[in-house]
């Protein structure tokens, strides 16, 4: 019984936190962007770019923090490109996002190969070039206390600082969005940009600012992928669809930080279980083919989006370029 509890509850929860960290950060990033009216399917590419920049810079400098700064720099640059296309030039936001995603897939490999000559990978990161996991005080000792012990010692303790940062950013994002001037204006600009404009606030500036925030958050997410989590180097295509999943979680969460985080948890948990369900014999069915386990998160996304979570209301102006004058 105790073993079951540990293997099927505690460890999956532990995995879930790790797996959902990049999702949470990306979902928050998407929230800032979409709340300001800019659809951002470029999250996927930005995440990949950030992972690359973080690993590359961390390797060269030997510092994971410098890696994170570089990642943020890279994602802000891509954000600005997205902004330039969609805000300044009113281009189609989905297309711009796709272009960035494709561009980054190619560019990371080319640069990676050109710089490190390891087939697009960066060298493995050691020591300070990587965020080590932090063991909480007394984590080892409390493990024997029933229930709370493992939750404290296994689930909560033992992750890298980036993970804790990610979860600290959830309430912070909520606060910024709903309790500050910046948040008020941001939300307004995604609902009715003309109202913001006539209130004497620059719509363009607000949207760019939102994209900067979005860039910072995806930058952190990327640095988690390549320097703060399970892997200590960049691998081509390591974002593996996480940007899209984060967007789905954002929609589940109705564009709110805390519910979006729970959406990410759902995906993280599903993946954690999928990993553990492989090869497990289920009574009467036998073992489920890995392909079907793989499908679960996607099918669930479709099912949930099909209205079983209630209609979510997107920011009204999302996806629509702000055009004042017909040219």
């Amino acid at each position, binding site marked *: 019984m105790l073993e079951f509890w540990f293997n099927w509850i505690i460890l999956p929860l532990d995995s879930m936190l790790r797996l959902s960290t990049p999702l949470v950060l990306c979902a928050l990033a998407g929230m800032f962007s979409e709340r300001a009216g800019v659809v951002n399917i470029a999250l996927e590419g930005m995440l990949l770019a950030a992972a690359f920049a973080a690993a590359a810079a961390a390797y060269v400098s030997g510092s994971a923090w410098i890696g994170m700064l570089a990642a943020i720099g890279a994602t802000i640059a891509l954000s600005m490109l997205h902004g330039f296309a969609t805000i300044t030039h009113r281009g189609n936001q989905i*297309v*711009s996002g796709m272009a960035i995603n494709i561009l980054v897939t*190619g560019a990371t490999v080319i640069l990676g190969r*050109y710089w490190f000559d390891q087939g697009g990978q960066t060298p493995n990161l050691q020591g300070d070039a990587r965020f080590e996991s932090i063991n909480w005080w007394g984590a080892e000792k409390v493990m024997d206390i029933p229930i709370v012990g493992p939750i404290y010692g296994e689930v909560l303790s033992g992750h890298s600082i980036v993970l804790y940062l990610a979860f600290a950013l959830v309430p912070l994002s909520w606060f910024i969005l709903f309790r500050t001037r910046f948040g008020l204006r941001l939300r307004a600009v995604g609902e009715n940009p003309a109202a913001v404009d006539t209130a004497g606030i620059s719509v363009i500036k607000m949207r760019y600012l939102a994209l900067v925030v979005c860039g910072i958050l995806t930058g952190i997410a990327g640095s988690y992928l390549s320097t703060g989590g399970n892997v200590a180097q960049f691998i081509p295509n390591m974002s593996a669809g996480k940007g899209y999943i984060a967007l789905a979680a954002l929609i589940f969460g109705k564009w709110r930080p805390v519910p979006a985080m729970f959406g990410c948890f759902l995906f993280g948990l599903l993946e954690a279980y999928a990993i553990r369900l492989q090869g497990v014999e289920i009574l009467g069915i036998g073992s489920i083919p890995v392909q079907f386990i*793989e*499908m679960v998160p996607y099918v669930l996304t*479709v099912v949930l989006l*099909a209205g079983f979570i209630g209609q979510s209301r997107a920011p009204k102006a999302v996806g629509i370029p702000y055009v004042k004058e017909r040219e």
Partner: protein
Amino acid sequence: MSQQRIPAWINYAVIPVLNVLAAFLVSALVFIYIGVSPIDAAKVMWQGAFGYSEGWGYTLYYTTGFIFTGLAVAVAFSAQLFNIGGEGQAYLGGLGVTFVSLWFGNALPAIIMIPLVIIAAGVFGAGWAYIPAYLQAKRGSHIVITTIMFNLISNSLIGYILLQVLKPAASMASESAILPESSWIPRMHEVLSVVGIDVTPTPWNLSFVFALLCCVFVWLFLWHTRWGYEIRAYGANASASAYAGVSSVKIVLLAMILSGMLSGFFALNMISGDVHQLKLNYVAGFGFTGIAVALMGRNHPVGIVLASLLFGFLYQGGAELAFEFPGVDSKIIVVLQGLIILFSGALEYMFKPSVEKLYLSLTRSRSNNDEEAQNA
């Protein structure tokens, strides 16, 4: 007051060309950075894609694929639906082709098989588009997200089918058996040799002609039938089309089914026309690139054919590039594609104001001169 009009050729020729040039220019910088002369690279690509008959064959072969996926995106888009699911629908189309060919191919002659294969490709593609369409129409799920999810689901689904159902026991790779010959779509060099024209054998096959027929069909359907009228009306103004008695559910389903069907036809070119077996992940990004093709082609069949040719050129020229410059990572072509999508899709309006201003100032100064001449 003289009102100036911007002629259409500026919008449909000058600006797209400028956009593509800008993309090439930026890629040239990337080439220089990694130490390859962009001029040499361009020469190799051009030569490889258009310089000899085999290059042409491959270019047109790729072009065919893009026409299908580009048309698919355009049809859905005329109803304001963003079908990102071309990838999965084309994959399913391939599954349909494979099933039908394997089941009946040994018993039936080509004259029956080929229409059957076409139907199978269309039906399977359409079926895979139907579910997201239904969910959008009836339950309001966001079609962009659902079609992305359906791409991922199709990967796993077909992965399973290939591995557990279709894979011949002896084979290691996840691919089906070679399809019976009666289901093969004839290659163009075979067809042309019948009429006495001699071209080098390439995968370029009759689906190219079918793709052009699809273009004509889409053009007629969208702009010259009442159903196309309803689709466009719904796309341009959903509440006005409701006022006109057009059922949104029917339109969403119709547009997506057509779109999925066209995506499914992609399998004709690649599977029935060339590789003759279903392989894991055989669509290889053509579905996604279809979005760029449709956008560059301004969602019009003629534009789509031209844009497909451009992407066909990129694919074929890119392969040649990788061949001639083994040191260059072949991913450079991916970068080039990304840049083209960026400049001609997302930044499509970037040059518009300045070009128009330039045009106006040129023509205005001319008309001023005329006036002065008259006054004098």
